[in-house]
């Protein structure tokens, strides 16, 4: 077994990696002294993959919206009942999540790691889906969809994605709709499973006080697939650089308006170090422009145009990238106006090198803090891995990034004609 070990001495972390003959990539990040052991088995398959060509086929397969998430629910069902019960018997907490680009199955335990890990490896590799259980699940997922329909923060965010994109499937709710899931059946679920759950399209990440060699041995013994599978052709609609809509509004039972706005990004690299550099640069810029230490934040806050709910972030994936910021405001359009003024004024004056340097250092410190949590490490590791980024590369980026580069990204990203806005108003 060929195990590679990388040490990150300046942050006291180590990562062990090993590649199974099936193409499955495995990672162990030991956390000495931690009680929790956290294992994730994830596939590079999420809600955006609703059109693809199965390896060795020629026709395009189009599947109902929400199917990746539906499959995530159904995988817990096994021939002899729900695998959740078996985890519960061991006292551990199984869970799973579907995001735009990944589906991850995981558990957290403080005891009997090997038994739990064996359950995880087993159930993710052995689906047992019946028509009857598919129909039953439609009731449960139906309530999940209804819950999100009432969630104003969720709605305001998806409405912003709808403003950004005309066709990109990222704008579709991860769980789909009551209507789209009604079309899901056993056969389509198996087809998606067989396409995307081959080990060569997956990774395993274990974080906690474990012995890496033992973890890899268990994988070696359990996973019987030997050959890697040809690449899956993922199809994405062509999307123009322009906004789909510049403004979207919805009414919900909220106390005051909620808004999200942001810039649709274009011309970005979606993989590797270049992608990471851009993400880091936009995040630094957002802090410089509207973070709590900025002039704009303080003015908006003092004038009562934003409150403590105000937040900002940047996302970058294979086919989309955008910044998003918002919260509650009595006058979202005024916030937009002030933001545009501030960006234009920063363009004239130029960014401050001193501010940049202070925020770069602060963000690097915040990154170190995230290494306290086994969940955070696991989640973040998975969410960047399929972009060909290793979580620990982030530390390096903060040392490599330059003020010149951040200035260049400032010019590219904050373009007024790609600024969209979504508002939820009280009913």
């Amino acid at each position: 077994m060929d195990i590679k070990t990388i040490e990150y001495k300046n942050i006291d972390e180590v990562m062990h990696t090993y590649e199974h003959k099936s193409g499955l990539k495995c990672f162990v990040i030991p956390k000495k002294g931690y009680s929790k052991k956290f294992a994730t088995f994830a596939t590079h398959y999420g809600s955006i993959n609703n059109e693809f060509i199965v390896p060795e086929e020629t026709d395009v397969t189009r599947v109902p919206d929400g199917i990746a998430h539906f499959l995530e629910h159904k995988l817990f069902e096994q021939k002899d009942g729900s695998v959740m019960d078996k985890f519960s018997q061991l006292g551990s907490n199984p869970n799973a999540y579907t995001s735009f680009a990944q589906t991850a199955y995981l558990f957290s335990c403080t005891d009997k790691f090997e038994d739990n890990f064996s359950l995880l490896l087993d159930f993710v590799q052995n689906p047992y889906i019946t028509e009857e259980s598919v129909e039953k699940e439609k009731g449960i997922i139906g309530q999940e969809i209804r819950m999100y329909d009432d969630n104003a923060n969720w709605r305001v965010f998806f409405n912003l994605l709808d403003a950004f994109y005309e066709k990109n499937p990222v704008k579709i709710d991860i769980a789909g709709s009551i209507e789209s899931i009604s079309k899901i059946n056993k056969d389509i679920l198996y087809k998606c499973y067989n396409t995307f759950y081959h080990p060569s399209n997956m990774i395993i990440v274990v974080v906690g006080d474990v012995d890496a060699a033992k973890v890899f041995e268990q994988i070696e013994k359990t996973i019987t697939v030997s050959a890697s599978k040809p690449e899956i052709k993922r199809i994405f609609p062509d999307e123009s650089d322009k906004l789909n809509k510049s403004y979207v509004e919805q009414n919900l039972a909220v106390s005051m308006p909620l808004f999200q706005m942001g810039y649709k990004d274009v011309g970005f690299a979606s993989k590797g170090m270049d992608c990471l550099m851009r993400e880091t640069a936009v995040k630094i810029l957002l802090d410089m422009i509207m973070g709590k230490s900025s002039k704009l934040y303080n003015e908006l806050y003092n004038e009562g145009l934003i409150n403590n709910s105000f937040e900002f972030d940047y996302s970058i994936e294979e086919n989309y990238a955008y910044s998003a910021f918002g919260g509650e405001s009595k006058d979202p359009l005024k916030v937009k106006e002030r933001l545009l003024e501030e960006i234009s004024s920063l363009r004239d004056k130029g960014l401050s090198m001193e501010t940049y340097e202070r925020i770069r250092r602060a963000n690097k410190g915040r990154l170190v803090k995230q290494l306290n949590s086994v969940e955070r490490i696991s989640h973040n590791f998975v969410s960047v891995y399929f972009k060909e980024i290793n979580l620990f590369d982030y530390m390096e980026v903060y040392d490599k990034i330059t003020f010149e580069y951040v200035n260049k990204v400032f010019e590219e990203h904050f373009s007024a004609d790609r600024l969209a806005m979504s508002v939820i108003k009280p009913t």
Partner: protein
Amino acid sequence: MTNTVLSENQISEIASFNGIKVYQIKTNKFKTNSINIFFHDNLSRENASKNALLPAVLRRGSVNFPTIQDISLYLEELYGAAFDCGVTKKGENQIVQFYLDFISDKYANGKADLTNKAFDLLFEIITQPVTENGVFKKEYMEQEAKKLKELIESRVNDKVQYGVDKCLEVMCENEPFGIFDYGNIEDINKIDAANLHDHYKYFLETLPVYVFISGDIVDEQINYIVDKLKKINRGNIKTLPQVSVEKHVSEVREVTEHMNVNQAKLSIGFRTNTDPKSEEYYKLMVYNSILGGGLHSKLFQNVREKNAMAYYVFSRLEKFKGLMVISGGIEISNKDKAYDVIMKQLEDMKNGVISDYEFEASIKSIETGINSLKDSQLQVVDFNLSQIIAGTQDSPDDIIEKVKKVTRQDVIDVAKKIEMDTVYFLTSK
């Protein structure tokens, strides 16, 4: 990875003076250190809104850092240290919390001396607010009062949380527990810069204070912190009243609230009549775990897995006031059906219809939960604060031992003390 890891959760009381208790949780497991300062008051109409507004005004600025911008800039200089403050309630205690965490010096180029700097900032925010004419700055007070009112109004935005909180508030509307920890709009309207400043004196001089210092912090730094805390001018320390958990219900109340919603929330509140200090409490923990404390629980298995009526459904304890609440999100038309399934689970609990799987998985689930909290600095602090409030001195391992001794008969006995009080239904218009 050359450091030896210190044994878990070594909490020690370092100092106790003037109604201030200082605890150290020594650990080098984390890459951060944290300082938490808690002021305890009892929940009351008189003080709740002022206690909620006070930290919001204090965080606006201090003498040397007079604006949010100044504080934030300094936090960035301290390698991205995080500061926050706010209020929570535990039982009928209203707790005002000030929190700061920062990376260990070794990750900040060695000699950054972050602990003393971070504590100085926190201390200054609490003890040296920006004032004008001897009272709080009017502008800050008024802006924060407005934001606090917005926060109170925005409770309806999160329907899941609202469905739970509202049930318990309605149920305890004639008890201090029914007071929202962020106060209420009517009382906030009566606050001005002067009476809030009077309240600040009461707050700083008389409320019991608990300080937790967590991380790899040396004695010199601890002494520095203790010496500074001794400089706070303190008066007669307030004694907080005892909370009564015993209440018997003569008639179950039903309350329905209408909103523009797609999904209904059904919440049911109970009196457990179980004191958090008593041995009975560990039995109640097991009872709750079997009923609705996870994937193994009766509620999850029956309401969700068997009947597919909900995506989420759970039961939860409010330890300090002896309450329990069941809550789930359901189809509006399914109210009666869901209610019946829930009632059946409660009956089964009383009659001891509990499978080996349900019983054993429940105990293991509690054990895992308690062992897991050791991995979070904040949760270790919260665990110890909860011990103080409950008046118990259990370590996490003590609790696990006690829970493991609970028998099925214990669970049946505890079930018989639990009384249903209020059914709250949030539904469409």
